[in-house]
């Protein structure tokens, strides 16, 4: 019997050409930036086989923060941080701006979701023992993130500038003021002067939407860097080693991104 190489069909040729058209820009980008490989390194990591739903709480917290960031940017387009206009601009957002009630509601309730998820995530890390060597530093970063999140809650609470907001901030700032030694200085810095007023509102606005979110973004970057570098912990009941690396040689960077990893390249077999 004579075996002859089968000619590829038209459909197979078309698929191969389409694959090539997808690969070309990706290869172009990869050759000049290494971004394709970077994204793959970030997303396609080895994790223990028995990871748990509890281990999605960190991603959930990140999602909650991104919702806050997005809705906050939109609210900033309509909000006026002055004693005269703050409350009426909030009323305008709630009552008149298209879907403003929804975006403000997402931001307001999302704030609580963000804080609650941070605590749940922290509880998971604690109960799984995921703060132990070599991940102590990531626990420290997490505590800083928690502090920043609470500071976001505190500064954001003043912005509607109603009676609750005003007096809660008076009490909150004076609580800081009772800290020994530097407390009175911290309180005066937060007020922007001797008494709560217009300066307090603008400075809380700046802290709430520029300084603290910037710090949170930076801390999240470091937090994720350590997660990727150190790998995901196995649950305490796991029989597997944590964050185990395989001996496989690095394969084609595109595998798994634009091609299914198990099937042959181009799908011609």
């Amino acid at each position, binding site marked *: 019997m004579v075996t002859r190489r089968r000619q590829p069909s038209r459909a197979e040729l078309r698929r191969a050409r389409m694959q*090539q*058209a997808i690969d*070309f820009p990706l290869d172009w980008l990869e*050759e000049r930036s290494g971004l394709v490989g970077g994204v793959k390194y970030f997303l396609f990591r080895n994790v223990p086989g028995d990871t748990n739903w509890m281990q999605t709480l960190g991603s959930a917290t990140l999602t909650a923060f991104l919702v806050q960031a997005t809705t906050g940017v939109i609210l900033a387009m309509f909000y006026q941080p002055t*004693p*005269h206009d703050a409350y009426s601009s909030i009323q305008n957002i709630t009552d008149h701006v298209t879907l403003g009630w929804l975006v403000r509601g997402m931001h307001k309730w999302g704030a609580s979701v963000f804080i609650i998820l941070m605590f749940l995530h922290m509880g998971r890390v604690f109960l799984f023992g995921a703060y132990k060597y070599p991940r102590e530093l990531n626990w420290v970063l997490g505590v800083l993130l928690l502090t920043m999140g609470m500071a976001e809650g505190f500064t954001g609470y003043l912005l509607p500038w109603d009676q609750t907001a005003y*007096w809660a901030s*008076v*009490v909150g*700032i*004076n*609580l800081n*003021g*009772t800290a*020994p*030694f530097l*407390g*009175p*200085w911290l*309180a*005066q*810095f937060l*007020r*922007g*002067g*001797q*008494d709560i*007023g*217009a*300066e307090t509102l603008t400075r809380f606005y700046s802290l709430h939407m520029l300084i603290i979110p910037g710090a949170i973004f930076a801390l999240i970057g470091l937090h994720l860097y350590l997660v990727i570098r150190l790998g995901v912990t196995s649950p305490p009941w796991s029989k597997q080693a944590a964050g185990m690396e395989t001996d496989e040689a690095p394969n084609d960077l595109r595998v798994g991104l634009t091609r299914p990893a198990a099937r042959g390249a181009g799908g011609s077999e």
Partner: protein
Amino acid sequence: MHEPSPTLWPIGFAIGVAVLLVGLIVDPVLLGSIGGAIAIVFGALWARDATSELRGRPVAIEPERRQPAAAHAVAPGRERFPRSKFLEGTTLGVGAVITGLVAVPAGGFALLPPFLGQKRHKVDLGPLTEFAEGQWYIATFMVDPSEGEVSRRTAFLRNNGNVTIGKSQVPSFTIISNHCAHLGCPVQANGPSGAILGLKTLTETTKNGKVTLLPVVPAGFGCPCHGGQYDTEGNRTAGPPVRALDRYSFEVDNGRLVLLSTYSVSHVDGTGAQAKIHKYKETGPGEHVDGVEQILYPLNPPHH
């Protein structure tokens, strides 16, 4: 890995676009179409060239013909003042100077204003004749009308009548701030006020905006936030406050009652004109002014 092969087609394409743009002004039909044609032809050649790899054509790459640069002959460890060290030092040094030049004013701007130039305004509450002797009033006024309603403050005050100091008769007032000595919430008068007493609220406009004087008969003062209670001299009687209520100092100017600044009080002995007030410099709510705890607050920020 390969270098993109050098090509002249983009230059022709650019010339075509330039001619087209000039042509649109000078002569759209003739010059414009010539420019367009040049741009299309060279653009097509450029696109053909750029996609040759995608279309599976081999790419001709010229071999590298340059000679490798001769290594600069410096024996390692021989240089007394290595250039790399010098450049490293100057980079760090100049960087530090620039950082300082930026950070000092920016940091100062961010941190100092709350502590500098804090103004204390005088508050004109109106003629002395308005304040009936022995009657308590809840006075509201704007500390700084240019800031608007956000600067409105409240004080509880009572005309104690005249007292004799030396040979002269001096008016005496008890003027208590409504800022709770716990955490600064607004203290309320415990007792009936205004219409229920059959008394009218007095209002007048001074340079401190609309001043209102609401007559009240307080049995004491109480805070709605955390339940701090005070007697009518401002002494703490219950709850979390750490000292008595702050008071306003005052002067009489042209027969008008003028509030000056606030000061803190640990406690008050006696009542009314005979009260002995234990005064301290103004401190924030929740700060101890006497007792052991005062060592926790050795230095307060400048107030005015």
